[in-house]
Structure formats: C-alpha cells, structure tokens
C-alpha cells in the first residue's frame, strides 16, 4: 500500500503545476488571447520566487517562519508572472501583433534572462538556484508528528504549500468563470468580442484581465513545478508550459476537466518513474534503457485520448484574432 500512497502523492505533486498553468491558459484563451508564452511565464515566476526563497534562507527569515516565507514566494511568483505577461498583453492587445510571435519571443527571453540573472547573482557557472529544505511541509511541522499509515504517507510524502493553494485557486477559478459577471464577460470576449463590445463590455480590459490572471497562475505554476522537480531551479521548466497547453485543450477549456486532465497526465508520468517498483508492470528486461518507454507513455496516452475526444473539443471561437474596434 505504501507504494500506492507514494504514487498518488507524486501524481498530485506533478499535477499541481500542470493544473495551475493550464487554468492560466484557460483564462487567457477564454478572453481571446492565445497564451503560448506560459512556458516563459513559468520560468520567470520560478526564477523570482526561488531567488526570494534563497534570500529568505540566507537572512534566517525562512527557517524561522517557513510557510509564511513560502506564501510570500508564491505571491512573488504570481506577481512576477503577471508583470511578465503584461508584455504579451501589450503586444497582442494594444499592438495587435500576432499572438504566437509575442509568445515565442517571451518564451525565448525568459530562460536566457534567468541564466544571465542567476549568473550575475550566484557567480559564474552556478546555474542552479537551490531550494531550501524548510520549504516542505512534513507531518512533524504540521503538528501531526507520528502520523502513520496510508493517508499520512499520501499527504505528507511530498507536500508543499503550493498544493493546497492550487486546489483553492482551482475552486476560485471555477467560481469566477461560471458564477460571476467577470467570468461571463471574459467568456463573451473570447467567443464574439464584437457582440460583447456592442453591449458595453470593454474588450481590451477583459483581455488584459484574462492575460494577467494567466500570468499570475503561470508564475505560481512555475514555482510549483520547481518544487515538484526537486533539484532546484535551472533556468527551465522542462516544457511544462507547453504540456499545460495540451492539458488545457484535453480539459476542453473547463476548470474541472482541466484538473482531471492534469491528474491523468501526471499519473502516467509518475508510473514511468516508479515502473521499477510496481510489481505488475512489465520491465522490458531484454531492452536497454527501457525507462524511455515509460518516459514516452504520458505523451502517447495523451495523443490517443486527444484523438478519441477530438469530436467534443471546442476552442473559444475568437481566440488568436486581435480585436479591432473598427472592424465589423
């Protein structure tokens, strides 16, 4: 049973960044802006927040108030992601530039900027920003010392503050999207901006809001990914921003479906890394480096599912088209 708890715990851990970033993509695309820059936004969020955690660690503030420090780092990740996404919003909303062009530029800029800044701060060649140990929530520091058994292991095997925050953010996103005026207006701008404008909705403002929310979620997702990856921040997020786009499409641009899609993808990813210790999985003894078979698994499974569910897939109608007030 321990292995099952470990797998579920790791699945949740890796589903969190996908969930956050895919939700971010959803807000942006629902407002009509294709946000391909999520990868870059994640990098910036992770960069700023890991630098902050490092500073907290050095100053002694972090070890003294660990979860408060993490909370501040989460906010910093979100705000820096938001700030960075302003570049995308400005280019694609005000300048009406091609949204993939702006996004691609931002994706290129972020990791390069991260390397240069990391070098400048940590000295040449030190390309990894380490995550301090106190960031993790253990059973002991949660006041549940001695908690044993399946659920304790499931919860505390690898718990970071980002996990509960992500679950809350998902609930909030779902609420905003479907139960508030803002959500309705946002969605209308992604479907038919001209109609939205004709009833007095400020399309530019709605799209700015969509992109900024996606910047916030993307930034937090960047931190969540770095925590999950566990080896510190190395100026990249291993393509998770793009994977999150796939998760978003797989989740049909709907919060709950996105959560399911993120769990699904993360589960197949984790199966790969645990393949050696799961008894009933084939271990391909006669094939060398068979871990690659399992590394491919999540991508192949997602492909198959995308093909099978493609009939139901429905993208926001006006996404990718710059809104021009003059055009009818």
């Amino acid at each position, binding site marked *: 049973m321990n292995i099952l708890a470990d797998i579920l715990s790791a699945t949740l851990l890796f589903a969190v960044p996908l969930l956050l970033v895919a939700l971010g993509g959803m807000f942006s695309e629902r407002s009509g802006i294709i946000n391909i820059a999520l990868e870059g936004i994640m990098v910036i969020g992770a960069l700023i927040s890991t630098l902050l955690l490092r500073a907290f660690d050095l100053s002694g503030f972090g070890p003294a108030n660990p979860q408060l420090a993490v909370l501040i780092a989460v906010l910093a990740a979100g705000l820096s992601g938001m700030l960075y996404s302003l570049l995308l919003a400005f280019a694609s909303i005000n300048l009406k530039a091609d949204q993939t*062009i702006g996004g*691609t530029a931002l994706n290129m800029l972020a990791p390069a900027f991260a390397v240069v800044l990391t070098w400048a701060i940590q000295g040449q060649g030190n390309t990894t920003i380490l995550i301090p140990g106190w960031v993790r929530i253990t059973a002991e520091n949660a006041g549940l010392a001695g908690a044993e058994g399946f659920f304790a292991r499931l919860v505390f095997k690898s718990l970071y503050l980002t996990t509960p925050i992500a679950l809350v953010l998902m609930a909030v996103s779902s609420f905003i999207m479907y139960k508030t005026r803002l959500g309705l207006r946002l969605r209308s701008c992604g479907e038919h901006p001209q109609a939205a404008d004709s009833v007095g909705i400020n399309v530019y403002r709605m799209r700015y809001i969509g992109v900024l929310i996606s910047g916030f979620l993307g930034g937090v997702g960047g931190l969540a990914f770095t925590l999950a990856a566990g080896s510190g921040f190395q100026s990249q997020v291993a393509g998770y921003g*793009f994977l999150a786009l796939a998760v978003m499409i797989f989740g049909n641009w709907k919060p709950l479906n996105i959560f399911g899609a993120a769990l699904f993808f993360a589960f197949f990813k984790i199966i790969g890394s645990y393949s050696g210790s799961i008894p009933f999985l084939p271990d391909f003894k006669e094939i060398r480096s068979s871990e690659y078979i399992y590394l491919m698994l999540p991508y192949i499974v997602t492909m198959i599912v*995308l093909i099978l569910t493609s009939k139901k*897939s429905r993208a926001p109608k006006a996404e990718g088209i710059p809104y021009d007030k003059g055009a009818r």
Partner: protein
Amino acid sequence: MKKRATMPKGALNLTASLVSILAGLLVGFILLMIFNFDKALYGFGNIVLTGLRTPDRVAKVLYTAAPLLMTGLSVGFAFKTGLFNIGASGQYTVGAVLALVGAILWQLPWYACILLGMIGGAVWGAIPGICKALFNVNEVITSIMFNWIGLFSANLFLYNSPRMLANAWGAINKDRTAALDKANPSAILPKLGMDKAMGSNYMNISIFIAIIAAFVMWYVLQKTTFGYELKACGYNRNASRYAGINDKRNIVLSMVIAGALSGLGGALYYLSGTGQFTMGKQLLSMGFNGIPIALLAASHPLGTILSALFIGYIQVGGEALQPEFAKEIIDIIIAAIIYLSAFSLLMRELILRGRSRRRQAEEEKSRQAADTVEE
C-alpha cells in the same frame, strides 16, 4: 492607401526587420553595460565582429546557419500554409538519427543519408498533419507531444543499437553516436576543398544545400499551383474546400514538407562530421530556433536565408562572449528582436495610415475648394 502600392511589401518588411534588429542589438548592449560596464564595449564588439574575424569563424557561421535555415524554412513554410509547426525539434531529431542510421549502420553515402533524414522528418511531420486533417486535433499540441516522443524513441533506439554508438568504433563514449570519420567517411558531406581554402573543418556544402532548398520552397510557394493551393488552405480552409481544393490532403502535405525540411536540417548538421548526436533528456534547441528565424523573415523563404545567416552570425559572436558574459545574452537579443518586430509592424501601419489620412484630408480640401469655385 495608394501609397502602400508605391513602396513594395518586401522592402517594408526588410526595413521593419532591420529596425528591430538594431533595437535588439541596442538592448543587448545595454544589458552588457548593466552586467559589466568596463567590458561592455569589448563584449559588444565580439558579438558583432567575431563572425567575420577569421575564415574559420566565417565557416562556423555558415555551418551554424545551415540547419537553422532548414528549421526556419520548415516553420515558415508551415506558417504560410496556416499551421504552426512547433514540432521542428522532433522532426529535426528523427531526421538526424535516421540519417545517422544510414551513415553508420547501413554504410550509405552522404546523399542517401540526407534523403533518409528528409524521410524521417517527413514521417514525423506527417503524424501531426494527419491528426489535424482527420481528427481536427490542434497541430501545436500534437507537435509538442511528438517532439518528446521523437526524442525518447531516438534515445531508446540508439541505446539498443550498440553498433551506432561511439564505443563500438574505438571511442569510449557510450552516450553518443559514432564519429563519422571513423564509422563511415563517405557519409560526411563533401567539403570540395573549401575546408582547406578557409582553414576550417566546419566548412562543407551544407549551407549551399540549405540555400537551394530555400529557393525551391520559394518557387513552390510563389510559382506553382500546388503552392497556391497550400497557401489558400492557410488563409481560409473552408473557402478553399468550397473552391474544390482538397484541404485534408493539403494539410497533411504541408506538414510532410515542413517535416522533411527540418529532417534535412538534422541530417546536414550531423553529417558535417564535426558533431555527434548525444542522448539527452532535453529537446534539441535547433528546432525551436527555427521559429524566430521564420518570424524575422516574415516566413518568406528567401528572407529566411538572410535571417538564418544573421542569427548564426550573432550566435557565433555569442560564443566569444564567454567567460566575461553568459552567452545566453544572445538569446535575449534574439527575443528582443522578435518582440520588437511587433512594434515595428505597428510603426509601419501608423506611417501608412498617417500618409493616407493626410492624403485624404488634402483631397477633401481640394474638393471643397472646387465646390466653392462652382458656387
């Protein structure tokens, strides 16, 4: 609006690109000054001059530009036909590995290996194309998935083909493919004596093959019915179908051609005999670099030649930045150039709009004058 016709579109695009290149370089210079003020001018000099300093550096620029040109063409061609081929990296990888299989396992000459590389890339491009055409799955997502599937299958295959690896050919490395000069010298791209003339091992015919490919793509897109149909599908899929164009077939063909171009890029790079394919868990950046190159050239095949040469040039310059600066400053410059090209597009529009408005106002005035005279 009449003014637009007097200034050719190509010249406008070129001016726009040049303005953003200059602005991007300025951003780079400012960054250098922020990080190390004393060495900034020296570093900037390295970026803009290294590529021409010695014949060897010139050769390195051409060697770097050839695969960049191919992936740039691949992305640009897909753009022209309304598709975003973000899968150039996977197609490049599969093309490279298949070309190396031809070279090392099957001991084929270089031209056959190049063909294999194109086939590998074409197959890897075809799958997202088929998914898009038949199942309407977004090609961006499928291409991303197939980048990873391509990388991991390449690794899996190479680890299970001991004869492909360097340690089967007298080296100790187990994590990369064999050096071609040991495994099969006939698979190395011909150098036609240019390597001796330029004193550089990097010089071979790859850049010329890539330039020929660019001209072929330009011809196909601009001068053939087939190219016209592909572009029509890109502009409006439904209208094209209404006009009797087989849109599904064209989408698949676009991706097949884009994939073949990327695969050719992979083949050219690894058949140069100077680099060995190393198994890693990171996607090869060469494929992603094709995106800015295509964007800088506004997807025009001939413009892509210039932008690939330029990006190759400053990348070689970037290598000379170290150890004083991180060579990633080059990536920042390229990103700034791409981002700024959005601004220059706007500036262009503003200039044109301003002109046409002034013209309208003048016409209005003269008409009013004419009216008053009639009264």
